[in-house]
């Protein structure tokens, strides 16, 4: 297992380096690394570019970049996004908390609810409970989140006046006013995930509940609830993990539209802004942030398979068999 973990970490570092190199080279090969401006300020920007070595060969630039990265965790400076010449890492650090706050809350809501309703639907398969849940699954999956966002904002926020229309200002994330202000964006983000989780759990659990070993468990004297919880439910969680992986990445990346509608000062719209406004240092840093999260999450979830299902063993040379 340890060998497997070391191997995965090693591959993680190699993958990271390759992706970072490709990104850096491709970005620096693009024309106009600092967006051009009309008017009388081109000279100042030109001076800045020169001072930061933008006219050196790409390999030299990459060397400078790596040196700055490994000696001072310096990702470069903002040009068109954020404050001019503000360190990128400092700028992004101010954007991540709001995104994490809203999206982690969304995960906290969507995973248990999705699992709960998925179990109910499976247990009551083809009964009215299952039918009702299926209707909601179809609605939640087929309608994009920004539609819920607008509806929630208009009905719950404006007509009923139950929640603020936008996220509260400040960073007091554990206060009631802040929590109250993000109820709507959290719900808008959660509906799709809840439906996805419900559908998956329902499908897996329905299949598991009819497996031979469930019959064996029941014949050994376990109640239906005991057999479902201890055997069927645990097995049905295995395919949920890859799905959670994508949800976790989604959580980190944030939602551009939801952030825009509810005025969440997060990283989602910053990423898009860095592309539109050609701030390549910010773009590179956010891209690498996503790559790290994605690769790390992959390792984490691969390892956690073993905990969820002891039959799965990592790193062996031989085929694992039951």
């Amino acid at each position, binding site marked *: 297992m340890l060998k497997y973990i070391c191997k995965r970490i090693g591959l993680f570092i190699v993958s990271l380096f390759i992706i970072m190199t490709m990104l850096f080279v491709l970005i620096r090969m693009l024309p106009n690394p600092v967006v051009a401006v009309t008017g*009388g300020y081109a000279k100042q920007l030109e001076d800045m570019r020169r001072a930061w070595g933008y006219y050196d060969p790409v390999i030299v630039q990459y060397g400078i970049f790596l040196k700055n990265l490994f000696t001072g965790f310096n990702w470069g400076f903002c040009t068109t996004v954020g404050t001019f010449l503000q360190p990128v890492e400092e700028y992004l650090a101010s954007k991540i908390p709001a995104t994490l706050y809203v999206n982690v809350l969304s995960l906290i809501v969507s995973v248990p609810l999705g699992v709960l309703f998925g179990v109910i639907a499976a247990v009551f398969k083809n009964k009215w409970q299952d039918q009702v849940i299926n209707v909601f699954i179809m609605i939640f999956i087929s309608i994009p989140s920004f539609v819920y966002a607008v509806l929630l904002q208009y009905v719950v926020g404006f007509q009923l006046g139950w929640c603020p229309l936008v996220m509260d200002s400040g960073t007091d994330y554990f206060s009631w006013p802040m929590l109250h202000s993000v109820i709507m964006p959290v719900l808008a983000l959660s509906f799709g995930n809840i439906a996805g989780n419900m559908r998956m759990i329902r499908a897996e659990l329905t299949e598991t509940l009819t497996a031979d070993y469930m019959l064996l468990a029941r014949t050994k004297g376990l109640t239906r609830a005991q057999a479902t919880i201890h055997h069927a439910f645990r097995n049905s969680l295995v395919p949920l993990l890859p799905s959670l992986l994508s949800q976790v990445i989604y959580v980190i990346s944030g939602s551009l539209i939801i952030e825009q509608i509810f005025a969440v000062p997060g990283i989602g719209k910053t990423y898009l802004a860095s592309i539109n406004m050609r701030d390549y240092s910010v773009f590179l840093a956010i891209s690498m942030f996503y790559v790290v999260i994605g690769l790390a999450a992959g390792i984490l979830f691969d390892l956690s398979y073993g905990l969820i299902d002891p039959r799965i063993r990592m790193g062996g040379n031989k085929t694992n068999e039951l």
Partner: protein
Amino acid sequence: MNRKLISMLLAFTLVTALLAPCGTQAIAEGETYTYHGTYSSVSTWSPTDWEISSEYDMLGYTVTPFYGFWMNETRDGYDIVPELAAEFPVDVTAAYAGNEVYGVPADATEGYAWQVKMRENATWEDGTPITARDVEYTLQQFLSPDMKNYRASLFYQGGTALANAESYYNSDKAGEPALYLATSLGDKAMTDFTAGADGQYADADGNPVFFAWGVPLEYLGGYTLRDYWSAMDLDTFYAVDGLMDADGMVPMTEDTVEGVYSLTGGDYFGNEPREALINYVYCYGTMEPTSWEQVGFVQDDEYTFTLVLKNPSTLFDFEMNVDNLLLVKEDLYEANKTEAGGIIKSAYGTGVDRFSSYGPYKLTGYQESKQIVFARNESWFGYADERYEGMYQTTGVELSQIDEHTTQLTMFLQGNLDAVGLAADDMEKYGTSDYVYYTPTSNTYYLALNTDFDILKSRETEGVNKTILTYIDFRKAMSLSFDRTDYVMSCTACSDPAFGLLNDVYVCDPVSGLAYRDSEYAQRTLCEVYGVDSVDDLTGYNRDEATRLLQSAYDQCLTDGNISDTDIVEIEYHVYSTDSANQKMVDYIEDAMLAAAEGTSLEGRIRFRLVEDQDYYTTMQNGQDDMINGAWGGAEMDPYSMMICWTDPSYIMEYGFDPYQSLTISVQGTDVTMSYYDWYNELYNGAYAIAELDVRNEILAGMEKGLLLNYHMIPIFSSCGAALASHRIVYGSEDYINSIVGRGGIQFMTYTMDDAQWAAYCAAQNNQLSY
């Protein structure tokens, strides 16, 4: 007893009255008036580094200009009032005439040196007095060669360029051998350079010599040699241009000498002699550093300073331009300096603790991408100054960054915002509201057409014709084919039809406030272009004439063999986004053209194709499309400067228009002929720059007429902003006055309800207000 009580009451009243502040709007204790608005992205509001208008708007709350432009008593113009300055500036040019350090001409009598006396009771928000030393420190930061601040050019270029400021700004390069303009290094001549075996010219030390091919030159009024491409043989141009390096330099060789001389020795450059090539040469040298003492700033005493300018300025221009001199607080600015990559930057103006106010409000809260909060700056001198009586009733300002328009509007309807901009889709519901305010902008939108025959021909495909765009009758038919009034009502939120290149917002006489469009010459131009007797009759629409012109253009095109009798005329219209608004616009124009073509040989044979192109300006500049929606705006108080947009090769978008073609304008009864480009230079920088208003208007109108009659630009509409103001807001003026004072801004804004009353009012309506 009663007499005693009355006496005590009188005494109390007297004491209260004496203690009451004498300036600004009287506000009862406990009353607060918080303005809730929105803002777009803000990165820095440092006076030396701000970039976009929303950042400058933040400074508007927190600084006091030297000279304020206040809405006048009749609420139809403005008065200029000394604010941070104690009195109006004094022209002290005579004292500096002949000064060799500052380079003021010996015969100069006015406009070069202006003395400003500052008020002595102005302070920063922490109570520290503001003195002339703060002005000096601020200018040093603006022009710092180590910092390369974004707004540095405010003080080395343009109306407030200080003497020697540019060389001070560049003094980081002094003392080291580097490439310099040869003429800046003393007595240099072309004979100082000799060609080596490889053909490359070098100086006596063997250092290579270059032509400043793509470098803006003061000698050329800030333009590059490369900008004059259309005055050269294209093969020669490309041969030289292909040698240009990333710095805009072209090595001096026999070939490039001949190439450049083919331009400078030609008619456009007045047949300059070969020796004059030295004006375009860069060679290695060492420049003497410029010290701060050589820059045109003189501290006369603790509260008085003099600015010595590089170029003379009128009183009005000085008062207006010196307002760019927004101060920074030395201790905070220094404390927030950091060095990275050899560049020093200050984070001043990026947080509450990194900024100091000296205006009516101070910053008390800032969360990036979320919220900005201002409160009254009790240290501000204006609150105790009777001149400000009745102003600044607002006690606090809370601005939120809300990007989504629907969210903004919903919050406004709840009573959580005091103003909201309207989109086109909102106009049906709110366009006639009692609370809607329309604000004209200076942007005039026009159809910009590609008129270059060769490139249009090269873009034609089988059965598709584009070269008919080169026929002026076709372009004029486009102009006459649609009703601009109907167009703006059908396709825009609240715009006005446009007939000229400059709209009603432009003021040609800042002192009287006269709008250029109201001048006799401007009105006559429009009447002559559109064939009407009075501007009141302008519609720009004449379908019968458009039909006649379409047939005429077609016949000529057919005769010339440029179109077949089955070809379809396809006009590729590049837009930033193929959204419904642009689709509606192109559909409208296509329908109008098809209607005009009915009964002609082009009936049913004209189509427009919408193409999404986020770089559509550049595409048009390269001639790779047929039509775009062009727009220029800004410089509302200087319409003459706007001609650069349509006559300078580096600005012109409309491919195929030659700004070096001749234009004859009757100036005060005398016909004068020169190129469009030269007319602009003469009007803005040359002989007519200081001419009488009437003369300048005559020339401007003449240039506008010449451009409009070429029909490569067809004005359509002038944009206008619409916004709703909340039930409790009262602007200083119901009508928009001009771009300087608007409706009076927050200075003159008043409220019919304080915050508590407003909250109760909104709650009584279930937080669903009706507009």
